[in-house]
């Protein structure tokens, strides 16, 4: 690639560098991403920057997206499966403005999909990149508060304590009651938090042809699952991993295979189940 001139790297309004972050920051983040891809599931620290939105709104995901986005990319942003919620709309507009990229709501058209809490229902393909927003990257955090200790546990693959938490769940509820942020083993080596996606989406991570990048802005960690990498949800031999099921189907598109949101539609408590993935749902109607 020829040297980028200042003109090339400037955004539309000239006040900001292309894709908001300065080039040195993007290089730093790209290095972290490369390391994360090389060691699947390992949390790589990076120098997280202040972003023009609060922590918890996707600062980690935005920084990852900003570091990998180019003018030829087509961006899709989803929040809880929907393309039209405040957070998704704001982030999409942000990149349309600072990176002049095309945006879309169609999963198949997107080259980069930034997401919070869901993996699209439409199967992903080669060349697509899924960017997750992660609040708490450390899967062992609730079990072991010390960072030095969790790092040691990862380094030595000492994951008994994670299994203890699943045991406890069965002892108390009769089954593994964790439904989101369900811990996974990546490539047989690192236990990873898949971010707060429902466990319904966990099987989609396994050997996915798309590259998965996870960015945690507050905790300043990046981790990744390269394409076609085995991702196994933890379980017991006699209590195997299972995903959620619904007796209803989507009230709008009739799907029985997608993740459904329950909605209360009037004051008498009438309930409706609809697809959480709006693009998938619209495509079927």
């Amino acid at each position, binding site marked *: 690639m020829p040297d980028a001139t200042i003109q090339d790297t400037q955004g539309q309004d000239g006040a900001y560098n292309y894709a908001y972050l300065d080039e040195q920051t993007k290089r730093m983040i790209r290095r972290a991403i490369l390391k994360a891809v090389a060691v699947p599931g390992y949390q790589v620290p990076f120098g997280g920057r202040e972003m023009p939105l609060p922590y918890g709104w996707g600062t980690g995901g935005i920084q990852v997206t900003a570091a990998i986005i180019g003018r030829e990319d087509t961006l899709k942003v989803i929040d809880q499966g929907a393309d039209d919620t405040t957070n998704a709309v704001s982030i999409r507009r942000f990149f349309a403005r600072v990176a002049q990229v095309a945006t879309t709501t169609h999963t198949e058209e997107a080259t980069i999909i930034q997401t919070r809490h869901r993996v699209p229902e439409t199967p992903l393909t080669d060349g697509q990149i899924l960017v997750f927003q992660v609040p708490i990257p450390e899967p062992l955090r609730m079990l072991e508060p010390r960072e030095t200790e969790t790092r040691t546990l990862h380094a030595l693959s*000492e994951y*008994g*304590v994670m*299994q*203890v938490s699943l045991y*406890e769940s*069965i*002892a108390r509820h009769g089954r593994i009651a964790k439904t989101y942020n369900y811990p996974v083993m990546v490539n047989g080596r690192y236990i990873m938090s898949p971010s707060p996606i429902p466990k319904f989406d966990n099987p989609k991570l396994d050997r996915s042809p798309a590259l998965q990048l996870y960015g945690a802005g507050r905790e300043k960690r990046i981790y990744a699952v390269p394409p076609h990498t085995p991702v196994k949800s933890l379980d017991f031999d*006699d209590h195997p991993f299972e995903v959620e099921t619904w007796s209803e189907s989507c009230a709008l598109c009739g799907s029985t295979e997608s993740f459904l949101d329950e909605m209360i539609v009037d004051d008498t408590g009438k309930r409706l189940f609809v697809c959480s993935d709006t693009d998938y749902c619209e495509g079927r109607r």
Partner: protein
Amino acid sequence: MSVPLLSARGVGKRFGGRIACRDVSFDLWPGEVLGIVGESGSGKTTLLNCLAGRLVPDGGTVTYESRSAGSVDVHRLSEARRRLLARTEWGFVNQDAREGLRMGVSAGANIGERLMAVGARHYGEIRGQAADWMGRVEIDVERLDDRPTTYSGGMRQRLQIARNLVSNPRLVFMDEPTGGLDVSVQARILDLLRGLVEGLHLSVVLVTHDLGVARLLTHRLMVMQGGTVVEQGLTDQVLDDPQHPYTQMLVASILPV
């Protein structure tokens, strides 16, 4: 039986200018219970931590005859190997059961942790073993799913013992296992420990300041004062015929009942 299970040679540890223990050497044979007695601050616990690999001594070596890898220098092992050893072949019973237990999860999970740490992945089997161990340490199996926070002090201590013994260790370090418990509970735990030690052919290094506990449980005794071992020998011999003035004072200060 020709090799000692654990042998210490010239083990010493200082904290700044303060000497915690100095030049401690002994051999512990399979099936033997070694008591370390002495007053508070005499370096008993520091020595125990050095032996168990929790503290790095300034000098000396600790050699352990492991089941899997033969003779190993405890402090030269990689951290991974040492931690593996500590949760498979060793046990460590703390004075305060809260330090040795996970208070936030049920008794069953506490006992099962070591099994899961070495790869057990069958819930029913783990639970079965946990229930079995609850019985062996005389806790009502009904309490299997209760958290240790709801247990009495004596039950917590028994749970801690079960949690350590479930991995079938050969060597258990105990730091005042009956300290802070009332006398009747102490007696039951001592009884239990004596039965387990004999039944499982355990080797134990037991730190205590209670000579009664030492008399009941230990075969051999080391008396420490100011960080050095002033006397060692068979327990009955040391307690019935103390040679060192400090030991004589210790024995003489047992309250007559």
